[in-house]
């Protein structure tokens, strides 16, 4: 069990954005974190990677919590943020080298692995450039390459499909698929429901900071009593419920 979130309540300062969130991301599966803008997807992710501290509840990655062993916890996580963030003074090669050093990875082995990723993204001839000057899509590819070259047990990708061209989306999904086969857990937040439906094994539907439903598509269908529905229909149904409840 790579990621386990138990009774998580948290948010910014004293505002609780998340209320009693429970879900798991299983090994060898892609878990889609689905929700409207402001539903709490990014806040959940920030708690998992440790940028925010839970007010209540706990988060375990491979049985470890942030409190018990911070560095071991971080070693198990790889993260691709929604907007790329890069060191302005480092070249692409140096970004990779720094990550290798920081995660204490085997230099030769990782370099070979990352070369493959870069080739896929057509970045292998830009190793000595400053990625900070790349276009947004290319920066996103750098972030993906740097995350997926690690041996993390849990890969967290925040809104992976924004800014990437269709070819890159396919390449990313291939890479994710490969990591999944190796037994890693993948947590992916997204709005692009059609793609999510196609690739994710399980879904966690967030609404107003709470988990409204979770499970495979079939499980969701039966929960919402919509036997012929796709993820889009279920999602719309959920938002309608939210409006009705507020009305």
């Amino acid at each position, binding site marked *: 069990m790579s990621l386990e979130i138990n009774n998580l309540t948290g948010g910014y300062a004293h505002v609780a954005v998340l209320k009693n969130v429970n879900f798991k991301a299983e090994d060898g599966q892609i878990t889609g974190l689905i929700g409207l803008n402001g539903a709490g997807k990014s806040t959940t992710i920030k708690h998992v*990677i440790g940028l925010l501290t839970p007010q209540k509840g706990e988060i375990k990655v491979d049985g470890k919590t942030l409190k018990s062993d911070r*560095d071991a916890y*971080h070693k198990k996580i790889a993260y691709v943020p929604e907007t790329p*963030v890069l060191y302005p*003074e480092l070249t692409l090669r140096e970004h990779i080298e*720094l*990550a290798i050093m*920081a*995660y204490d990875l085997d230099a030769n082995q990782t370099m070979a692995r990352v070369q493959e990723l870069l080739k896929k993204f057509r970045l292998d001839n830009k190793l000595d450039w*400053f990625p900070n000057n790349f276009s947004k899509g290319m920066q996103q590819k750098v972030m993906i390459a740097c995350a997926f070259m690690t041996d993390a047990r849990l890969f967290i990708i925040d809104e992976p499909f924004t800014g990437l061209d269709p070819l890159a989306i396919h390449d990313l999904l291939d890479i994710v698929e490969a990591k999944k086969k190796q037994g890693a857990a993948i947590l992916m937040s997204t709005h692009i429901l059609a793609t999510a439906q196609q690739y994710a094994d399980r879904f966690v539907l967030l609404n107003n900071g709470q988990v409204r439903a979770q499970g495979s598509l079939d499980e969701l269908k039966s929960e919402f009593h919509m036997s012929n529905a796709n993820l889009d229909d279920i999602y719309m149904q959920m938002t309608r419920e939210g409006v009705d409840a507020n009305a």
Partner: protein
Amino acid sequence: MLDLWKKRLRKHQMEQFKYLKLVFNDHFVIALIFLIGALGVGYASLVRLVAHAYWWGPIVLSLIYSLILAIGRFANLIEAADSTFLLPKEGEFFHYLLAARKYSLILPIIVIFGLNLAILPLTLVLVQGSSVWTVILMALSTLIFKDVLLWVELMNCYDGNTINTNWLLNKSFWYGLALLSFLLGFYVSPIITVVLALIGNLWLRHQVINYVISGNLRFSVVIANENARQFRILKIYNLFTDVPSLQSPAKRRKYLDPFLRLVKPNHENSFLYLFFRGFLRGTEYLGFYLRFVIIGTIILFFIHQIWVGTVLYLLFLYLSGFQLLPFYSQYDGIVFTKLYPVTSKAKLHSFQQLLVGLMSVQWLIMSMPLIINFYQNPLVWVCIAVGLLFVLAFVYGYSKTRIKKV
């Protein structure tokens, strides 16, 4: 439209004020006072050196006046969004631009007045038969020409068609004319300069309305020019402080790469790897450090009392160490700095290694002038030893507590 201009101007001035406060910080003001003093002394001895008029005097002065003419641009504060949101108001933009032009005159007036005052003694020496009136008339002509140039810039915001000869709206033409009339003024009579400037000015003013009415506002050109102008100003501010809207781009500086090899790439050194590269390729901290080292070393050369020298020596070591401390949190805004499985102890250790390296180099360089000036005095070796102890105490004692406070 005039309200819009006033609002923009207020916002612009607030921003300038904010930055100027940062530019004229204590360190810089002290350096500036020294600089002005040194320049004044140099200028005075130059005037004494010239002593009498030369045939090339007017040429030099005319060139100086032409340079003065180049100071201050048309500041219109137009923003990129205007071309979308204010497109229907294009006609009224003329009034906005008139107000902007008037505002743009203020800085040149001040500069022209000040520089003419400064140039007065040189003119009196260098130009035969010149008097205070020569300078007054020249200053007046410069002002009139500046007015012309600002009209030209305003007219260039439009693509009117009443003036068919392109070069009349080219600033180079007016600079040429100004240079010519300055030469005539110095060689023959300054009255000529004033008259020429006035003719040009009145002729152009006469054309403005028709020209503007006949054309459209060239939004994209105006916006591009204004952005470039603001960028130039911000770039200057950026030398002194961090301008958020202006990401000081990192420079590759490949020639510094041999230094980078000094860091062994292993897990413990992760942050040293990052810090060292960031320091050498960034524009901010390296600049400050070099300035302290160079200025400090030069000043120490001119100090001939050992105790004053020692105090300054320690002061410069302290200042450059102190201004490096915020670099510790330079990368905290980048998520990964927080996610790397590297202990904060290792991060602090890396930072201290960088600090001790930089300060030791500075210590080594700044000890040179002390040794050269005071090699006969055995006390100098004590000073240098104190300097090294100071560096070690700063890095391994003081910096640790400072960083924890931040």
